């Protein structure tokens, strides 16, 4: 567990971002797998992009703990940094794609006219909409955590 002791605040935030990204995948899968409006309404590449982002964040945390020196250390810093930058971008892309795909449906469920609102706002559809909103919140939090993590180093400074 020595390696954990060397985690900086940035590492913990980045790790939290990775966990949130994985949670997003789970929420998304549950949402499109459950009865309701968004059942089977897959959004292209959400799962691979999220998974990639989570992997990038986790990799950044791990690589950030590796003790090297010289050019190898610099190369490692660059690789880790690229991962820290790319991961929130991927998560933001997922969030934007999901929001774009769901905007019409959410409008339909929450803002249909009075003639059909009872028909539309079934428990299943409302649950489905809530699931999608939770999915977006999860992705947003993951992206935000990833961005904050990008401002931070991943290893405690040695005194």
């Amino acid at each position, binding site marked *: 567990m020595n390696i954990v002791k060397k985690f900086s605040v940035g590492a913990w935030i980045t790790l939290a971002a990775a966990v949130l990204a994985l949670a997003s995948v789970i929420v998304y899968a549950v949402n499109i797998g459950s009865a309701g409006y968004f059942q*089977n309404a*897959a959004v292209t590449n959400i799962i691979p992009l999220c998974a990639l982002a989570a992997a990038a964040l986790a990799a950044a945390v791990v690589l950030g703990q590796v003790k090297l020196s010289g050019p190898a250390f610099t190369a490692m810093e660059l690789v880790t940094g690229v991962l820290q930058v790319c991961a929130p971008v991927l998560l933001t892309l997922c969030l934007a794609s999901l929001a774009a795909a769901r905007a019409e449906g959410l409008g339909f469920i929450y803002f249909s006219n009075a003639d059909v609102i009872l028909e539309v706002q079934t428990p299943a559809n409302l649950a489905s909409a809530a699931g999608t909103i939770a999915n977006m919140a999860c992705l947003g939090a993951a992206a935000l955590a990833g961005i904050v993590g990008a401002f931070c180093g991943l290893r405690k400074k040695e005194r």
Partner: protein
Amino acid sequence: MRAKSFAPVMRGIAAVMACVLVLSLVGAGVADSFRTRIDDALGTTSYVTSTDADAARFKSDYATIDDMIAAAKALAVKEGEEGTVIMKNDNGALPLAEGGSVALFGLAAYAPYPYASGDLKAGNEDAVDLLQALTEAGVNVNETVRDFYLNKVLNKHTEEVPNRWTGELETQVAYDNIYVAAPGDMAEYQIVEVPPEKFGEMGAPADWKSSIDKANTTGICVFARGAGEGNTYAPGSALDYEGNATGKDPLALSDDELAVIDAAKETCSKVVVLINSGNTMVLKDIAKGGAHEVDGIAYIGVINDYQCTGIVRVLTGQVNATGALPDTYVADNASIPAVMNFGGGYYADYEIVGRSDDPRYPGVDIANTTAGSFGGSNTYNGGHFIVEAEGIYVGYKYFETRYYDCVMNPGSKANSAKGATQGSAWDYNAEVLYPFGHGLSYLDYTQTLKSVDVDKTPEGNVTAVVELKNNSGQDGCFLAQLYVQQPYTDYDRQNNVEKSAVMFLNSAKTQVKAGGTAQVTITVPTKYLASYDYTNAKTYILDAGDYLFTAAPGSHAAVNNFLAHQGKTASDGMDAQADGAVLTWNLSSLDKDTFSVENGTKVTNAADDADLNYWTGGNTVTYLSRQDWEGTYPINYNADVEVKLADSPRKDEWIAQLRGQTYTIRTDSPAAEGGDKGVRFDTTHIQYDQLSDVNDPFWNTLVSGITIDEAVGAVIHGGSRSDVLTNVDNPIVIQNEGVSGFTAKYEDEASGKSYRFNVHSQTLLASSFNPELAYEWGRVEGNSGLWLQRYHLWGTGLTQRRTPYNGRNYEYISEDPMLTNRMGCGILQGCADMGILNGPKHMGFNDQEHNRGGVSAYMNEQKFRETDLRGFQGGLEDADGMAVMIAFNRIGATNASHHVGMLQRILRDEWGYTGLISTDMMNNKYYFNAESMVMAGITQVADFGGDDNHITLGEGGVDATWEYISPAAVENDSALVEQARQNLKYQLYTYANSAIMNVSTEKVATWWDDALRNATYASGALAAVAAAAWVVLTVLPDKKKEEV
């Protein structure tokens, strides 16, 4: 502070800016798709209207008339290439051997149907018939046979014949012997094919047989069947060449035709029969195992000016054969369950509907007898009815589902004798000769479904990728067909929801290199996977279970793929091995919600009263169900059951419907009179917002100015052209006929050239199975409208071919609603993209021309929604179709043009259709009821009148047709008058969006467009700078950094 400490900050800034960049890029796309709503919310304007003549919204794709003509010809040739279907090909009969000869037999070989120009045939000077096309392709045509047929048998000449509509004499092409082009109204049909035994007395050379080099000659026999408006074939009505009744089906090959085939077989080494008909024929005698079996059979549809060139390219193998059958070919038409209820008959007490005290027509004796196809007598014409008890099981959906159940569900009594015509037990392979979607390719290929994605949202699509593998050594074009099997569940059985064991979804074609593979993506709206549950959920449902998808060369191959996937083999009764890929999409629970609302409208039953059981109050009708094929097989409800109006618990309501009394004009609600509202139908008032939204307040303001007289008058006297309305100043729009395109002649003053663009063949387009070709035709048709300066035509037919006997089948696409749907979508979108109103005919079950002006077609709502209407849905909901013509007949007891459920609830509300709705030709004022048509949403009643948009033109200032209609009679019914104005609103809105107005709008950047764009550039630049700074700060050595 050391510079290195800034590196993480730069990295963080790069991350933030890159995220902003992503958001602005994706956000710009999203914002664009919600542009109108954003404009409304922010008060911005994204479009400006240009009135500059050079900035027309719709411009022809062709710079010159020569280019336009070339495009029309090329399209027609392509229809021949893609629509020719090789049904049978044994002994290498096709393609024709290079350098070989042919001998042409049969009247249609030298004068393919139709031989006369008119609606179906353009008749341009450079038209190419089959003989010419073969000759131009270098095929040697036996001259002895040719000359005998041309000079002794047909003897082409001209005759003066009276025009059907005007009675004026016209010069027309005629022949001494020719097939009957119009079968008449369930009359006897003479098959005028000259039998070889008559050849001698007709002057055939004694050595005509020996003139044929048998070893090197293929006999090609061409047989035609006519068709036409007001025409319906009658089963068993065939007469032979001599005029003697044979008792045979007129769509079966006659003994005389078979004798011609025998003569060809005697004199030629191979024989190919070409079927030149829009009506599915009975080919048992010449199919495999038939007494007159031939080597090859090909379907060539109904031919126009240039299709023969394409057909011959297929026959000679210049192009691969890619056409497929849009209908099932059976051994006996009596095996078709829909034929059990065809033609119709009277209710037992139909007379009680007739009366002499109709308050609308005082002193007039109005009968309830049938009238001619074009009207005539004083009658409600509500005495005849048919019951479409087959439900959804039309065409292959019956034959393939019953076959599937023979294998999978023997308990359903699928193999009982009921419905069998070829033996004591029902046997698919004895009943069906060639299935839907069948078509042989010259080049060996396979089609494999690689992936399928189902987006189960109201606007979602099924997206399938099909791999086509060309196993031959020659490049070629290939056809991929996508089929689905929906789950058939206990819920369905309990609630009488029927499911076909296989359903066609869509198709596509592509070129594939020799030995290569190519992938095609086929999409279709997911909503078509849903079934209509009219008994319980009363809306569209998606059942729980596995949805199986496959790509296959026809419906039968598809259903065999499903059976094999489900573990069945030949030992279970399958008739072939099947190894086609089947992919599954699973739905875990019954979904009654996703498709229960459409365009903001709750989808629920709209035609309960179309069901005869609604009126009889019992279970008079048993609908065909796969739960029990034997017990539910249709009986004839005209002969086997006595249906009495007087016995109905809803007797008065039923009789009122049959009298057309579906709406009573009110007298207690004064309507507002029109007047000058300060707006007009012009480019000053009609800008982008008005063009894009029929609910823009402008339109209500505009039509509120229409006077009561003109509002009602313009609807009920829609005529063959629109009239200029006071206070509106709308353009006059002339309607045009032409299921094959505009029939009007183009006259080029500069060059003196003239040309007709109605060169299309609906039948060959249908058998092309190519929605892209349908779009191409629609676009060519639209372009021709721009050149002709005609903007509105009744230019296609999308009614389902319920039986082979309908005389209008040549105008329609298929027995299958989805093939019709996809082709209609293409045709109407092509026209709409050129600003041309192309109205498909005849929405609402024009299933027979016999007594079309009044026959009641009874059915349940699943059939109502999933058969004929589905055929129209693609063009009118999924595409931007702008016009539609309603069928003549009744749906249930209600005139289709009075049917509020179909026209207002489904067409306008569910489908969101904003185009115009016309009746068919109003021929009987006792059947077509003025106020009922207005209330149903008809925008224009079709008649021959012009400049007659008033209800004051009759004697005494009343309406000239419906004497009980007058300004005084309607002025106290605000609902009626306002509905008339609403109907005209849709008409005017459609004109504004067409090439009739032809103004263009330009997109301009709003401040929020600028903001998004600037955000993209700025975030991109900052991300790049920050990233670069981070790299530099990271890479530079510590020492150097300290120096910095």
